[in-house]
């Protein structure tokens, strides 16, 4: 961020009308480069499965690695170009573990922002998809107290960007600063398939996200609603097979398949941060109206800032609000061979329905602002999976017990530049 200083000095000069011409002519002064990153390792006491913090992670600590550097480690660089006083371009490139276990760079944001007034702006291109309170900075470890935002809530919607347009309007309501933001866009994402293996594609279309943020002093309130049409082709073979079995099979396919299925999201959050301490809580519900089900999650977190140390504690929970099993097609009256096929289909449907990350985590950790622009963190999580579920664990090996608990230990160094 130090390279911003040149830009700021140029603005300061322009503001003072002193060397306006010189600053205007110097294109280099319109560029600023900044970046952030995290170096971290994570260990899990569960050795018969990997602890996966979101749906994009193919591997993690536990079975694949004793100490995994892939969970939180990342590096991002951002170029900002101030084209004019009201037009700004930004490109952010990020390197982190991808769905295919590689570290290929990806474009996280690339957009043009036009400030119609200081309180009304529009953006076009790839922008952040505003879902949660710290969505904007969920990957910027330095901006957050925790090693990572609570996985139960932030794992509900792992999508971080949308290609399209957004607008932001700010106006005062009484003593509050109110900001309303609307986003419309689309996204194509790839992710490792949890049950069958391989890579899945998700097409997310007609994303509409509405967020209202009220701020007054140390208090922040946030409400959001989002919807999108979701298509995941990986489920097609299963539901195409169900469709071979008449109206009953078609009705199951209609209920569960993910083809242009409208998924809905609602969320609310409150934060209070007077400096010496902070408290934050969020609740969210994501309903896919499909085989992926309906889930809700929340967390409560708080911490104290004691000099350079910020000890904190978090309680977070994700649960399933839809059925985790279904009777499927009746086997009665079918010839033995067909009955066997139907039993397999019913089994596959129920395997998907029961694949729900329901769990509770107690976390305690400390952030140490060790040097300027560098924070060191250590965090301990006690994860209790709901009875019969795998929680956020994947790459399940023989010997793994659904339900049960695990201890996760993480250390991380977050930096900005």
């Amino acid at each position, binding site marked *: *961020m130090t390279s*911003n*200083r040149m*830009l*700021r*000095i140029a*603005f*300061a000069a322009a*503001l*003072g*009308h002193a060397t306006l011409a010189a600053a205007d002519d110097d294109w280099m002064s319109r560029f*600023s480069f*900044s970046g*952030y990153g995290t170096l971290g390792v994570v260990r899990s006491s569960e050795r018969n499965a990997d602890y996966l913090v979101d749906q994009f992670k193919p591997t993690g600590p536990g079975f694949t690695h004793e100490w995994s550097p892939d969970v939180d480690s990342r590096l*991002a660089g*951002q170029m*900002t170009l101030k084209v004019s006083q009201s037009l700004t371009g*930004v490109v*952010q490139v990020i390197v982190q573990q991808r769905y295919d276990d590689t570290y290929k760079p990806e474009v996280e*944001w690339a*957009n043009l*922002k036009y400030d119609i007034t*200081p*309180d009304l702006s529009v*953006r076009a291109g790839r*922008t*952040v998809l505003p879902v949660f309170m*710290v969505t*904007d*900075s969920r990957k*910027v470890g*330095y*901006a*957050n107290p925790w090693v990572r935002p609570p996985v139960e809530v932030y794992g509900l919607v792992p999508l971080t960007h949308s290609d399209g347009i957004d607008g*932001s309007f*700010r106006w*005062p309501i009484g003593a509050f*600063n109110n900001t309303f933001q609307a986003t419309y866009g689309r996204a194509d994402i790839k992710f490792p398939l949890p049950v069958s293996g391989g890579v899945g594609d998700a097409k997310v279309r007609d994303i509409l996200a509405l967020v209202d943020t009220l*701020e*007054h*002093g*140390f208090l922040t309130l946030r409400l959001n609603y989002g919807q999108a049409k979701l298509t995941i082709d990986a489920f097609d073979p299963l539901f195409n097979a169900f469709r071979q079995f008449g109206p009953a099979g078609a009705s199951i396919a209609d209920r569960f398949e993910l083809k242009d299925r409208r998924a809905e999201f609602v969320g609310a959050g409150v934060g209070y*941060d*007077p*400096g*010496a*301490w902070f*408290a934050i809580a969020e609740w969210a519900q994501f309903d896919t109206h499909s085989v992926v089900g309906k889930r809700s999650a929340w967390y409560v977190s*708080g911490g*104290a*800032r*004691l000099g*350079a140390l910020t000890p904190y*504690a978090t*309680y977070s929970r994700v649960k399933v609000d839809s059925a985790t099993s279904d009777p499927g097609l009746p086997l009665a009256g079918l010839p033995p061979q067909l009955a066997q096929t139907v039993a397999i289909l019913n089994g596959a449907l129920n395997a998907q329905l029961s694949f729900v990350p329901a769990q509770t985590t107690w976390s305690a950790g400390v952030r140490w*602002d060790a040097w*300027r*622009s560098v*924070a060191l963190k250590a965090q301990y999580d006690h994860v209790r999976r709901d009875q019969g579920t795998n929680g956020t664990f994947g790459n399940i090996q023989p010997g793994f017990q659904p339900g049960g608990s695990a201890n996760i230990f993480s250390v991380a160094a977050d930096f*900005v530049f």
Partner: protein
Amino acid sequence: MKARVLIGLSALLLLASIESGARAEDVVAVVSAKSPVTSLTQSQVADIFLGKASRFPDGTQAIPIDQPEDTPVRDRFYTQVAGKSPAQVKAYWSKIIFTGRGQPPVQAANGVEVKKMIAQNPAAIGYIDSTLVDESVRVVSMK
């Protein structure tokens, strides 16, 4: 067990908030002598410097002018009006910058430069050591 943890946590938080009660008084927010602004609340000043508000309460544009990082006057100012340590201010701006949503205020080299910039722009607001106050600027009384 859960209740006990929560009680322990809130006791810790309470302790921390008492400790932060002390405040320095030798840094003042200033505007141009020509500005109509005479008084603001601490939270209004904080909002302007944190990019949460772009206008004074009377609706006119507000342009904040910062001082360099690692200067005592800057650290005292943010602690006093926003309750934020230097590291917290940096963490706050890294949140805003890395979405392309905004940039921190323009920065003057020192308090004297702040006064110069304010004298030339009635929309500007800055903060300086109280010993630097002269007739070119007006101290904003903070509630």
